[in-house]
């Protein structure tokens, strides 16, 4: 056994993040670590990376008991991690990022740039990556950054590579390339701990799996002995349809349309319309321009030419408040950074977009604020003890509900959702989808930017497929297939 964790426990402020978890990683194995958000996966990874210390249990590496006191020790033991939010330094070169914290020095103590560059070139060549050692990270694509992170693991002679959602923002071609690299690593006798929510991917790439739920070990076995549905059951504790069946809704007339939207270097000829009670999907590879279009519509950025028409009126949107005034709101992909204000209270957050409405002259009317917050809390079932509670103290799911509550308070008619279920576990995904269905039943229209085909096919009425800043096609979801959508999105 290459790595074995015995009865690992970790407790945070009285909450059991991990309880008596056993984990066994074989050599030459790609091992999936599965579980919903909050199941304990990231705590486990942080313990392996030396960020946290376990409260109980022991860790064995190649048969020897070890203590992973800090990140440096973790690296020294041959454990390396590739995170979703990459631990990268934009302004430094590829060479430097690979050798970060681990520079090669000459006998006089000064850095040996030449040796580092040579080694970097070699590794990049081995991985067949088309990257120069002197490029700055900020100029690389996401896939290229992953390769640099993997190179870093190789430099450290890592034995165990932990990959957390490695394909999250990659195109299909890049994903396949990554699978190749992973398989090569396996051939080099390394073991990989693979964390992913995409069960298709897990079934395809991995050899074994371990499922955690609520901090405890549920099951661990070979992939060949299981299937997707079983995995979902293990993870959620009950059977769930991955996609909530959409209620039938009678779609009404066109309510919103965009004509000839153009922004230099970003997008061109953007023409589409949205009908009342419709859910319109926007599919495309990461970097295809979908979010840029939405941000322009919402007024965060300006577009150079084009027209936005809402209820037969041409709208002048120069900043977000113009859009909000007209009933168009945008839920950004980055919930934590752009959606909520963590250090302000839940009541403040829920009411943040309607402060003027809640005021008499300039003075804030506390009763109006409380009334609205209470309505939203009940509608969305937000778990909160006091209104003055800071938003950052809520659980992830409740934080998201608070952000949604903020927008619903503005009584919008068009809701633009940018990757609303990204990085969310199966159970919460269902809840969001169910809620979206309710919203359109009650008269709202939704534009949903998504990178998950199953979500598009399951929730949307039509889908706009974008590629490199252009709309390639607008399809009726009933009359298309995932293969067709993927093909169009890849530029074919």
């Amino acid at each position, binding site marked *: 056994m290459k790595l074995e964790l015995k009865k690992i426990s970790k407790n945070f402020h009285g909450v059991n993040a991990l309880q008596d978890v056993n984990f066994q990683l074989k050599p030459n194995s790609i091992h999936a670590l599965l579980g919903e958000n909050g199941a304990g996966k990231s705590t486990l990874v942080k313990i392996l990376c030396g960020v946290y210390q376990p409260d109980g249990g022991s860790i064995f590496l190649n048969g020897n008991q070890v203590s992973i006191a800090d990140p440096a020790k973790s690296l020294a033991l041959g454990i390396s991690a590739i995170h979703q939010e990459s631990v990268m330094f934009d302004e430094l070169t590829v060479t430097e990022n690979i050798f970060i914290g681990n520079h090669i020095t000459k006998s006089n103590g000064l850095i040996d740039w030449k040796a580092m560059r040579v080694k970097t070139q070699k590794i990049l060549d081995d991985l067949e990556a088309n990257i120069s050692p002197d490029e700055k990270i900020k100029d690389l694509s996401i896939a290229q950054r992953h390769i640099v992170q993997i190179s870093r693991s190789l430099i450290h002679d890592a034995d165990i590579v932990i990959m957390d959602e490695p394909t999250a923002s990659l195109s299909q071609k890049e994903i396949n390339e990554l699978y190749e690299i992973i398989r090569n690593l396996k051939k080099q006798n390394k073991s990989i701990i693979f964390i992913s929510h995409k069960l298709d991917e897990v079934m395809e790439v991995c050899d074994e799996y371990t499922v955690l739920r609520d901090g405890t070990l549920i099951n661990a076995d070979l992939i060949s002995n299981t299937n997707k549905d079983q995995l979902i059951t293990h993870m959620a504790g009950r059977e769930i349809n991955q996609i909530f069946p959409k209620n039938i809704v009678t779609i009404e007339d066109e309510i919103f349309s965009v004509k000839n939207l153009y922004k230099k270097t970003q997008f061109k000829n953007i023409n589409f319309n949205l009908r009342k009670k419709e859910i319109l999907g926007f599919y495309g590879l990461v970097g295809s321009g979908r979010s840029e279009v939405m941000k322009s519509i919402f007024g*965060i950025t300006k577009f150079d030419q084009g027209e936005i028409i809402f209820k037969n009126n041409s709208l002048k949107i120069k*900043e*977000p*408040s113009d*859009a*909000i005034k007209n009933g168009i709101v*945008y839920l*950004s992909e980055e919930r934590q*950074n*752009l*959606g*909520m*204000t*963590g*250090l*302000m209270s839940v*009541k*403040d957050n829920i009411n*943040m*977009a309607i*402060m*003027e409405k*809640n*005021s008499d002259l*300039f*003075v*804030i009317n506390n009763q109006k604020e*409380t*009334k609205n*917050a*209470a*309505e939203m*809390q*009940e509608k969305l079932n937000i778990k*909160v*003890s*006091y*209104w*003055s509670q800071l938003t950052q103290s809520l659980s992830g799911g409740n934080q998201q509900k608070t952000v949604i509550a*903020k927008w619903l308070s503005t009584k919008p008619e068009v809701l633009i959702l940018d990757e609303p279920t990204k990085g969310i576990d199966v159970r919460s995904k269902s809840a969001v989808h169910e809620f979206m269905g309710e919203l359109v039943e009650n008269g709202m229209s939704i534009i949903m930017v998504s990178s998950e085909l199953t979500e598009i096919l399951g929730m949307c009425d039509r889908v706009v497929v974008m590629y490199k800043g252009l709309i390639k096609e607008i399809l009726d979801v009933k009359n298309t297939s995932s293969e067709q959508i993927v093909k169009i999105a890849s530029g074919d």
Partner: protein
Amino acid sequence: MMSNLIPDKPPFKLFDILYKKEFILLIVLFVILLINSNISPYFLDLYNLIDSTFLFSEKAIIALSMTFIIIARQIDLSVASIMALSSCVLGYTTSLGYDTSTIIFLTLITGVLCGLFNGLIITKFAIPSIIVTIGTMSLFRGLAYSFLEDSYYNKFPEIVISMGSDYLFGYIPYAFLTFIILSIVFAFILHKTFIGKKIYSIGNNPDAAKYTGIAVDKYTIVLFAVNGLFSALASIFLSGRLSSVRPNIAFGWELEIITMVVLGGVYIYGGSGTILGVFISIFILGMLSFGLGLLNVPGVGIIIFTGLLLILSIGFPSFVKNFRRKNE
């Protein structure tokens, strides 16, 4: 209708007040008052106390608008320089013989324009305010020097002299009275209106505020313009009090004003703080200066004391917090 039973705040515990910054500041103030009154018989003299307010009233006025700036996650190092330039305009327009209302208007407008300049450069070019105001600090005072060169203005309208050195009803200095009134106004805006709420939002998370539809740039520009306006107003009081304006007027005042704000519990990185805290800290610093002055401690000693007080007021509580955490 809605019988929602979620309370606003956790149950009220008297004990919690003890931890509030404003309460601690009040205690510090009382201690200083106590010490001062024991040191010198002159301290508790009403007239002396009233007169002591002259020394800090002008700075105090600017501290109020500076509070908004800092809560909004900005900083303005150019306030003293704006004071200098505005005073020069005051003196210059007086020497040109304009009528009083024009003089005052032009002086105030100078402050507003300087503030607008700051705000526009910060927002249009997205440059951190600390850097921009380091630059305008030189620019504005430099303009004052180029105006006045080596000399000084000492002729001002009657009303200005009166504003700076006279008392309402013979008791309350106008400058101090203005400060008190403005404190109430600023406190009201910050804590009761949506304008104040928006300032807190901007200071806590400017990006999220933008996405929520708050006009972050507009608010920033206005805050700097207001800061400039009140700097100009303060310079009118100061010019009236001193009856003489040189280009080096108010030199170093930006540090004292920022000290007033930060000592008052306003977090330097924005998002939290109250006018009450700043109000009390202004008196702490004022009474401290006054007391040390009575002890014949030179102005320098007061500066050193203030610097130490500033650092320790933040360092001590945080040290205690860390100490406690390590022992848990």
